[in-house]
C-alpha cells in the first residue's frame, strides 16, 4: 500500500503546539515533530512516552561501580598489595575509603558515556548516519510536523491536507512512499 507523508512547516513553536493540539483532538496521529530546539510541553500533546534513558543511566552507573571495584581490588590488593603511606592493604575493605573517589568517578564516567552513546544510537544520529529531518531549515528557525496517511486511515489524504492547512502553517510538503 502506498503511504503519503505530509510535512507541515511552521515558523513559530507556539503555533505548531496549538496546531498539534487541534489535530490530536480530531484523532490525527502525529508521527514526528522536527525542531531546532526542544519544544516545551510537546511530548504529552503528540503522545510521546517518557524516556527510559534514566533507567539505562542507572544500569551503566552500576556497571561502572562494579568494574571499578573489581578492577581496583585486583590491581591494588590481589595482584600486588600496594603500600601507600603505610595504609592497611590486605583486604579491599581495610582501604575502602581510598577507593571511593575512583569508584565515584568511574561510575559517573560510565553513566555519562553510556547515556550519550545510547542516545545517539537510539536516535540514529551517530556520526556518519545520514540525517533524517525532512528539511535542513528545521535545524535553523523552522518547525515541522510529520503526518502519515497510513497511520491515519480514518481520514483520506485530502482530508488530512485540509486539516493541516487549517493550523496556520507556512508551507506543506508531500511525499509518496511506495
Amino acid at each position, binding site marked *: 500500500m502506498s503511504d503519503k507523508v505530509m510535512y507541515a512547516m511552521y515558523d513559530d513553536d507556539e503555533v505548531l503546539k496549538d496546531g498539534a493540539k487541534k489535530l490530536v483532538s480530531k484523532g490525527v496521529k502525529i508521527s514526528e515533530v522536527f525542531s531546532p530546539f526542544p519544544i516545551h*510541553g510537546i511530548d504529552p500533546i503528540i503522545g510521546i512516552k517518557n524516556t527510559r534513558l*534514566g533507567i539505562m543511566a542507572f544500569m551503566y552507573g552500576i556497571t561502572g561501580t562494579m568494574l571499578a571495584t573489581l578492577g581496583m581490588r585486583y590491581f591494588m590488593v590481589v595482584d600486588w598489595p600496594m603500600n601507600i603511606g603505610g595504609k592497611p592493604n590486605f583486604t579491599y575493605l581495610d582501604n575502602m*575509603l*581510598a577507593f571511593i573517589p575512583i569508584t565515584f568517578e568511574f561510575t559517573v564516567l560510565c553513566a555519562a558515556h553510556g547515556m550519550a552513546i545510547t542516545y545517539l544510537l537510539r536516535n540514529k544520529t551517530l556520526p556518519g548516519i545520514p540525517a533524517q529531518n525532512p528539511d535542513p531549515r528545521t535545524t535553523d528557525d523552522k518547525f515541522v510536523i510529520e503526518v502519515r496517511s497510513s497511520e491515519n486511515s480514518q481520514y483520506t489524504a485530502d482530508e488530512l491536507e485540509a486539516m493541516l492547512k487549517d493550523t496556520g502553517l507556512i508551507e506543506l510538503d508531500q511525499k509518496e512512499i511506495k
Partner: protein
Amino acid sequence: MEFSISNNAKRLTLILIVTGALLTLIGLFTTMGDHHFKTRLLANGLINGFFFFALGLGALFFLALQYATETGWYASVKRVVEAVAGFLPFGMAILGLVLLTITFMDGAHIYSWMDPAMTDPKSHHYDEIIAGKSTYLNKMFFWVRTLAYFGVYFIFLRGFRMRSLEEDRIGGTELHFKNYRKGATFLVFFAVFSSTSAWDWLMSIDVHWFSTLFGWYTFAGMWCSTMVVLVLTTLYLKNLGYLPKVNESHIHDLGKWTFATSFLWSYLWFSQFMLIWYANIGEEVTYYMMRIENFKGLYFTMFFINFAFPMLILMSRDAKRNAGILTFVGLVILAGHWLDVYIMVSAGSLGANASIGPLEIGMVLLVAGFFIRVILNNLTKAPLTPVNHPFLDESVHHEI
C-alpha cells in the same frame, strides 16, 4: 488564600511543647546533681539553638538565592520559604541567650578558649595553642562577630519580607530588581559568614583542631535540613487544600533540592573525613578519634542515614513526587542532621559523658513545637500565594 491555623495544629504544637517541657523538667531533676550538669544543659541549648536557627537561616539563604538567580518556579511556594525564614529572629534569641550564658560562665567547658586560665602563661592550665589563637578566639571579638552575623541576617530578612509584602500591594518590577540586588548582596555576606560563624559557634568547641572545609560542611547540613522543612511545610499546606497553584512539579523540584543537598552534605562530610584519614596527622585525626571512641555507632549511623536514605529512596522521579515517601525520608534525614549537630557539639564538650536522655529529647520537642508554631503563625500573616510576583505566571505553569 489566607491561612488559618487549624485547631488540630494548635493542639499538636501545644502537646509537643508541653511534652518537651515535661521531659526537660524530668531531665533537669535527674541530672541536676551531675558533675557535668551545666555543660550538658548548655550544650543542649547550643545544639537546639543552632539547629533551629540554622533552619531559619537556610530559608533566608534559599530566598536570597532565588532572588539573585531570578528564579521563577518557586514563586508559588515563596511564602512558605518566607515563613520558615521568619523563625530567624526567634532562633537568634535562643542561640544568643545560650551563647551569652556560656560566655558569662567562661566557656562552661564548651568553649574552653573562653576560660582565662587557658591563655594565662602563669596558670598551669596554660595552653599554648589556645593562647596562639586568642587574637581571633576571644570573648570580645567573638561577640563582635556574632552580633555582626545576627545584625546582617536580621536586616536582610526584614528587607526581603517588607518588599515582598509591598510587592503584593503595588506590584511592578522595581521591587523585583531591588530584591535581585539585595539577594546578590546577601549572598556575598553569607559566603563569608556561613563559614566563619560555623567556626565560631561549632568548630571552636574542638579548639585545637581546625578544618577549612568545616564551614561548608555545616552549611550543607543546614541547607539540606531547610529543604526538608520546606518540603514538609508545603506538603502539609497542600494536604489541607491550601496552595492550589502548587502542582506536582513544584513538589518534585523541592524533592530534587533535598536530594541534591543531601549529596552535597555527604560529599563534604566524606571529603573532610577521607583527607584526614589519608594524611593521618596527629593534630587532625584527634577530631575523628574522639568521635569514634565515644560516638562510633551514632556517628556512622548518622552518616549512613543522611547519605543512603535520600540516595536510594529519592533517586527516582516518582519518589520525588510522592508525598508519603518525601515525608518519610524527610523526617528521617531531619533527625539525622539533628544528630549531626548533636555530635558536633557533644563530642568536644561532653565526650564520654554525653548521652541522649529525657533532657535531650525534651529540649528538641520543646524547641520543635515552638518552631512549628512560629512558622504556622508566620503563614497566617500574608496571602499564601504572592499576588504580584513578576514570575507568578511562570510558576503557575511550571512543568517538568
